[in-house]
Each structure stands twice: as C-alpha cells, then as structure tokens.
C-alpha cells in the first residue's frame, strides 16, 4: 500500500499544505474510460492539465505525494514561460511573488569579467527572467486547478504499472493509501520527472551525454544587500578550478550552487559540516562573511543533456524532464517542459475533439524532440565551459578565464545561453509555399509570434486564447467577401479560429473591421515593424494556438486568398497530404 508522508515538508519560507487523499470512483468498480490521465503533478503536468481544460478537455492528474514538491528546484522562469503561464491563468500570481531580473555576471579572480544583459523590449509584457521557487508555481497551478471542474487532481496516487491495450487505450495500475485500482485512459501524459517511472516501465532509453561534473544546490535564508542578478564565480579560491553560482529567490532566500571537486562522493558533499564550510567560504568571498544564515533545502545533481528520440510511445506522451534531461545552467529544465506542454495541449485537444488529424501528435514529438536536440547542443556549449569534459576543454576554459582579465574578445565566450523558444521552421504543419526571400522582414513560418505593446497595460497576447488566429493587417474597413465566406465556412468546422484585424497607424477612429472578431489599432506601428507588414496591402499570418506562426501572406510572398487560407489551416491541422518531410 502506498504511504505518502502526511507530514508537511519543512521549509523556512513555504507553507506546505497537505492535501487529502480522496478515494476515487474507480475504487468502487471499473470506471468510465478517461480521455486523458496525466501522471505527475509537477509544473509541467499541472500546466498541461490547465492548458487542456481551455479546450474543454477533462483530465485526471495522478500525484504520488500529498503536497507540492519539496525544495525550490526550478527557480528561474523565462519570458516564454510567463507567456504560457499567462495563457493558463497563473502569470499574475507569479509576477506578484517572483523577482524579475536581467543581468548575469561572471567573476574571475575578484574581477567582474563579463556582464550580460537580457533585453526587455517595450513590446514584451514580461521581463526576460523571473525567479520563483517551484513550490510557489506548483501551488498557484493547484489553486487554479481547484477552480476548474474539468481537472480531477488526485493526491497520494502512485502509478505502479501500465498496460497498452490493443484498441486504443492504456490501463494504469495505481496504488493509494487505501489500496490499488486500475484506471483506463485513451491517452496518458507522462510528466513524472527526470526519474520517470513510466519511461522506465516502457523500457525507453534517452540519447545524449551525461557530464562528469557534480553540483550541490543549497538554499539558504540570509539577508544580502545584492540585487537580483545571476552571479557566476569561476575558479574561486575556496573551490579551485570549479564554478559557483548564486541566485536570489523570494523571501530572502538564496540559491548557492557549487561544483564538487572531481571524485568527491555526493554523500560526503551533503554532510552538514561540508555544506556549512563551503557556504561560509562562498559568503566570505563575496564579503558577507559572518552574516547569519539558515540552511533550507539542498541536493546534488550532475549535468545531463539527453532526450528520448520520440515523445510518443503508443498511448503515452512524454513531456518535461520525463522526456529530456537538460543542464540547468541555461534554466532549460522547467522552461523547456512548459513549452512541451503548451505544444502538446492544443494538439491533443484538437485530436480528441476531432478537429485535427492524429498526425498532430507526431508533430508534437517532431517539433519538441528537435527543440530538445537544439537545446542539448546549446547546453553542451555552456556545460563544457562550466564543467569542462576533457583536459583540452579545461585548458581552453582556463586560458579563456585568464585572457578575460585583459582581453575583451574572449568575454562573450562566457555568454550564458538562456532557454529561448524554439522556431519550428521545419515543422510539417507549416504551410509549404514559395516562401519569401530569407532576408525579408517579418517572421518565418514556425517562429514564435512576438508580443506587441498596444497601450498601457495592454499587449497583444492579452487578447489571445485557446484558438487559431489569423492576424490580418489591413487599412480597409472590411475583409474581402470571398475571405469572409471562407471564414464562415471554417467556423462551420467548429474548431476555435478567430480573425484579428490590425489597422495601421493613423486610423484609430476606424470602426471594427467587418469580418474580424477583434480589431486592434497599430497606433505606433509596432505590429507592422515586428511582423514585417508593409504599409500598403492586406497581409496576414496564421498563428497556432501555441502562439507559433504556421503560414504568412506578405506583400513580398503572395496574396491571401480563400483557397490559400483553407490550405494553410488544413496543413496546420495535420491534414495536408504529402506534408513536407523533415
């Protein structure tokens, strides 16, 4: 019998709530088959459940524990994550509690040798990075789920087995504090983390590299008069040859992250005396020696850059750390996982509602595996600087550190490649076309749609929801009749689709454009600049429900027509034959 602890985790700052285990209907006998069961209530599982509910898709979320995660874990969230969290309704809570930041500093021999600034363009509602402990994010998602009748979040429910049935469903065995039961589902989403039980049960193997370097993560409560910025110390005197990172978290908490000397065992590193001595040495080095501090949570990890080669295994779909393990230097773990979930949610919903082809799920795997491989590549570059994998790499790293004291040209090698949204340029959902010249302004198909400042506290993404959009740029008072007819026909298909008309600057008084669900005024020309719209002529983008473009019609490519809009949607729903191969 599964016995999750009913004692709240200890924390210096987070008020853990122990949720009750509630006996599910399946305990009384075989229940109805579910459409989606999500295994693991980490940030990715919770966010995906909320995302699916936006399309009317109910889900059961099975969580082994009775409370949110122990320890701060993922503490840095990117702008793209915030945009996704905005879609599922928890961004405001994160903004209210989190600490925004945009500078990363690298120190060597007491000198700041590199300072990276992450830009914050005026068109973005969210800053580039925000620090918040993972428990808070999970707690905000849980609060949102408790308001959503479509999501059945079951605490204390540990998945012990999975069987694929031939006729398009899977059966999970679940152990609980009052015994086991079975639950049937058309689809299972595995968001059960880096040590994914489902991945192991299905015998799936990840591909990629595990790096030698081990790091200790320790959270301490301390009052330090330092701004919220990333601090990276290379080769500090107290930890020669290794790297130390520091991040401020809310509630006067600080993350200290230090590399262990080669060969030191994790158990040895996690002894209190060792932790204390090293934290004191680090505080001493930054001039905060003697400041009182308390230890909260600590752990040890090693950098990995690995991914499953396919995220769909029959009826099980992997997302987040269950699908890939990425080095945390570029804040790529949870931030990549949130993009997985947001890519998956609309596709699975469209398949379940009969709006799109089951092939959409293949494109989830194609697009997100490609994203993970790109991240593995980029992360590899950061990782081999932070924890050089060979003598050659160590020599080059050391030479770069040494040169950085006096030579500007090597300093960009410190550049910390932060998680960024992947461009699905080779996606088969893109509307294959005689694409415009590569140097044309605007966005390639598959690129993430940029946010646009529309007015005080008013941004484009505030107006978007769980829907396809046609961003239609026009100075005319109405859409052409043929296009309006096509849109009426598309609406018959029942899937969420909306036309957003964008009216060029100087036409503010124009009434809503006939044929558009929303009309936005591009008063400052920001929309035109970001999307590469020319001043004259109707131009458009088709935007997927995950805010990636999949087709464009600009003056330098081709004109939008009823037929080409239908063809582009057909393609975006995974229904195009002879879809471009990857």
């Amino acid at each position, binding site marked *: 019998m599964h016995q999750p602890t009913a004692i709240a985790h200890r924390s210096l700052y987070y008020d853990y709530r122990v949720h009750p285990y509630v006996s599910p209907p399946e305990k009384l006998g075989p229940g109805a088959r579910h459409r989606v069961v999500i295994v693991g209530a980490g940030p990715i599982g919770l966010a995906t459940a909320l995302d699916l509910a936006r399309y009317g898709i109910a889900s059961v979320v099975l969580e082994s524990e009775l409370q949110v995660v122990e320890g701060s874990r993922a503490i840095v969230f990117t702008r793209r994550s915030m945009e996704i969290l905005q879609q599922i309704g928890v961004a405001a809570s994160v903004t209210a509690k989190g600490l925004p930041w945009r500078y990363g500093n690298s120190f060597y021999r007491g000198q700041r040798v590199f300072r990276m600034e992450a830009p914050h363009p005026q068109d973005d509602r969210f800053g580039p990075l925000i620090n918040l402990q993972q428990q808070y994010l999970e707690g905000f998602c849980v609060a949102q789920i408790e308001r959503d009748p479509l999501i059945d979040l079951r605490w204390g429910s540990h998945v012990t087995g999975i069987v694929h049935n031939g006729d398009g469903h899977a059966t999970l065995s679940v152990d609980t504090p009052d015994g086991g039961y079975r639950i049937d589902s058309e689809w299972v989403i595995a968001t059960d983390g880096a040590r994914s039980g489902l991945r192991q049960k299905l015998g799936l193997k990840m591909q990629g590299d595990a790096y030698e370097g081990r790091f200790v993560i320790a959270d301490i409560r301390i009052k330090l008069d330092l701004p919220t910025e990333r601090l990276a110390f290379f080769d500090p005197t107290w930890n020669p040859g290794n790297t130390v990172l520091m991040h401020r978290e809310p509630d006067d908490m600080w993350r200290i992250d230090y590399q262990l000397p080669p060969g030191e065992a994790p158990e040895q590193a996690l002894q209190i005396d060792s932790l204390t001595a090293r934290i004191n040495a680090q505080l001493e080095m930054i001039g905060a020696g003697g400041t009182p501090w308390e230890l909260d949570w600590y752990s040890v990890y090693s950098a990995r850059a690995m991914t499953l080669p396919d995220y769909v295994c029959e009826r099980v779909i992997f997302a987040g750390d269950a699908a890939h393990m990425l080095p945390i230097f570029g804040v790529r773990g949870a931030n990549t996982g949130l993009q997985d979930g947001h890519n998956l949610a609309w596709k699975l919903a469209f398949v379940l509602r009969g709006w799109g082809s089951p092939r959409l799920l293949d494109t989830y795997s194609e697009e997100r595996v490609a994203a993970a491989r790109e991240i593995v590549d980029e992360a590899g570059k950061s990782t081999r600087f932070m924890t050089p994998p060979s003598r050659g790499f160590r020599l080059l790293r*050391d*030479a770069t550190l*040494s040169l950085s004291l006096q030579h500007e*040209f090597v300093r960009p090698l410190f550049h910390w490649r932060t998680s960024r949204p992947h461009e699905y340029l080779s996606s088969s959902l893109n509307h294959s076309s005689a694409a415009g010249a590569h140097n044309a302004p605007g966005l390639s198909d598959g690129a993430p749609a940029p946010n646009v400042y529309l007015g005080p506290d008013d941004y484009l993404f505030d107006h978007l929801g769980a829907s396809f959009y046609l961003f239609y740029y026009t100075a005319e008072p109405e859409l052409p009749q043929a296009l309006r007819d096509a849109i009426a026909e598309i609406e018959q298909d029942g899937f969420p689709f909306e036309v957003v008309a964008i009216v060029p600057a100087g036409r503010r008084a124009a009434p809503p454009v006939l044929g558009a669900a929303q009309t936005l005024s591009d008063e400052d020309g920001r929309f035109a600049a970001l999307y590469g719209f020319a001043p004259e002529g109707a131009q458009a983008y088709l935007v997927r429900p995950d805010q990636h473009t999949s087709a464009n019609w600009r003056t330098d490519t081709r004109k939008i027509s009823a037929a080409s809009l239908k063809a582009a949607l057909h393609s975006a729903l995974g229904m195009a034959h002879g879809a471009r191969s990857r």
Partner: protein
Amino acid sequence: MSDTSLADLEQIYDALAHAIDRAGPAKSELLLVKFALLLGQAMNDRAGFERLLESALQDL
C-alpha cells in the same frame, strides 16, 4: 608567415622558448593555449588557423 626571414624565425623560436621557460612546467601549457587564442583572434582567418593546427598535429 612564409615571408618570415630566417632571422625573424630564430627570434620567434627564442621568444617562444623563453616564454615557456618563464611560465614554468605547471603553466606552460596554459600559456600556449592563451597564445593560440590570441593568435587566432589576430589572424582573423578561421580556416587558416585550422590548417595550421592540423599541420601541427602531424608527426607528433
């Protein structure tokens, strides 16, 4: 480089030897890597740099 006179080559030879000695056995490798990065930056010719590196790997 091919225009380097014998006199210059001899001076380069001596300068490198002295620098390696000044760095000492523990740091000479680091010195040479730093030097290579500086040379690579000054050359502004990645393909040329890689050809030279490949030549240096011959007959070790």
